């Protein structure tokens, strides 16, 4: 397979068009489908008990997102059906089966479940990015390669490479904008004090104290960390700089990878000190739109190749 242009190596004109009007092979979008789908299905499986327990809730409903159209909790049967349909659609999304119908259904199911779960007094932010990615990939022709639909001949062969490139570029842009917003939020709500004061140390102490008072086990690193009060302003400044620097990821190459490493370390630090994990970026799936991810399969190690292919090579 010939090397295909990346988001950053398109022959498109410079400037904004370099980002939004790119070319990509169908395999790259297909791999993004497989990665996001596999992540979301595993996430749903692990979080299934949490979603199912929403059926026990009676009070405190305050709809957010698409759930804001509801006046109160939905019947238990409807919630169970939504979870079941979303899970099955997720398997179809990942495998690329009946993609035209089931991929949007999966994305909308995740949107509905995330909205519903966030409608009980605590709006979490773990699911925002991957739900946005599912919406983009789910509405794109991501099953034209490496899918059951492609095997069955249910694919259009006449698409332009931009048909596969722009959803990837959009997904990358969503990552960039999301992190810029998180950086701006700290300056907007916390101001410069967020960086130079004790705020970050107090946030770490707060997360540990909350877990302790609720009977959980806080991170042992929190106790060590709060003693080093001098270090937190540097960590706070680094966090804001890395978040605001997200657009450099669109440059590509080593700059992109350096940023991905930096933001991953930020999330790893949050997990280590606060026991708050953002699984989508921590598994690196969130950053897949920045890379030629089809290489994961095209350039897979020899032990993953069929024996006959190895002997031919």
């Amino acid at each position, binding site marked *: 397979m010939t090397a295909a242009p990346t988001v950053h190596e398109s022959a498109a004109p410079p400037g904004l068009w370099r980002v939004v009007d790119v070319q990509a092979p169908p395999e790259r979008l297909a791999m993004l489908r497989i990665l996001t789908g596999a992540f979301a299905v595993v996430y749903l499986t692990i979080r299934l008990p949490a979603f199912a327990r929403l059926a026990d809730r009676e*009070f405190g409903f305050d709809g957010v997102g698409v759930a*804001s159209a509801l006046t109160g909790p939905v019947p238990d049967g409807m919630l169970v059906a939504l979870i079941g349909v979303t899970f099955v659609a997720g398997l179809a999304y990942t495998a690329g089966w009946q993609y035209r119908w089931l991929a949007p259904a999966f994305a909308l199911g995740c949107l509905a479940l995330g*909205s519903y779960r*966030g409608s009980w007094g605590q709006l979490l932010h773990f699911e925002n990015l991957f739900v946005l990615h599912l919406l983009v990939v789910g509405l794109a022709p991501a099953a034209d390669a490496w899918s059951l639909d492609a095997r069955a001949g249910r694919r259009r062969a006449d698409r332009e490479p931009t048909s596969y490139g722009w959803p990837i570029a959009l997904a990358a842009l969503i990552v960039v904008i999301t992190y810029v917003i998180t950086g701006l939020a700290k300056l907007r709500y916390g101001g410069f004090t967020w960086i130079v004061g004790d705020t970050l140390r107090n946030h770490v102490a707060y997360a540990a104290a909350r877990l302790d008072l609720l009977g959980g086990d806080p991170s042992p690193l*929190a106790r060590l960390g709060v003693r080093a009060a001098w270090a937190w302003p540097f960590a706070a400044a680094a966090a804001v700089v890395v978040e605001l620097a997200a657009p450099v990821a669109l440059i590509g190459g080593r700059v992109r990878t350096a940023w991905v490493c930096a933001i991953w370390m930020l999330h790893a630090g949050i997990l280590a000190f606060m026991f708050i994990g953002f699984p989508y970026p921590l598994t690196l799936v969130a950053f897949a739109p920045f890379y030629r991810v089809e290489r994961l399969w095209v350039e897979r190690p020899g032990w993953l190749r069929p024996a006959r292919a190895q002997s031919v090579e």
Partner: protein
Amino acid sequence: MTAGAVAALVAPVVLDRDSFPLSTYPMYSRTRGDAVTFVTAQAVDADGSASALNLRVIGNSDDPLIVAGELRSAVRDDRADIRCAEIADRAGSWDGLPADAVAIEVVTERHDVVAQVSGAASLLDRTVHARCEIEAP
């Protein structure tokens, strides 16, 4: 399409309205002092000494953000007594319940969080919103 998506992402920031999946990402973005108020539930013995429960007993979940958020909503919406009864029901069949525990209290406590994490005395204030007896299973 792309311009519309960018506008949608930026809209919550302009409107300062957090939602899902479009968000202002306000978590941990405000300044925070070292004195913080928490809502929690505790087991208390006959002398009034409190001991911690666990996430599953308090909120029937393993996610502290959800447990804390729901308990906070219950206190805010004047439903602390209902939530207290639910917690007492779960606590009654919890193996980890101290033998001398007689009741559950839903409380607001104010702590010096840096002292709390350091293992020092940290309680600054305590308000009981609801108290309910624990019945043996």
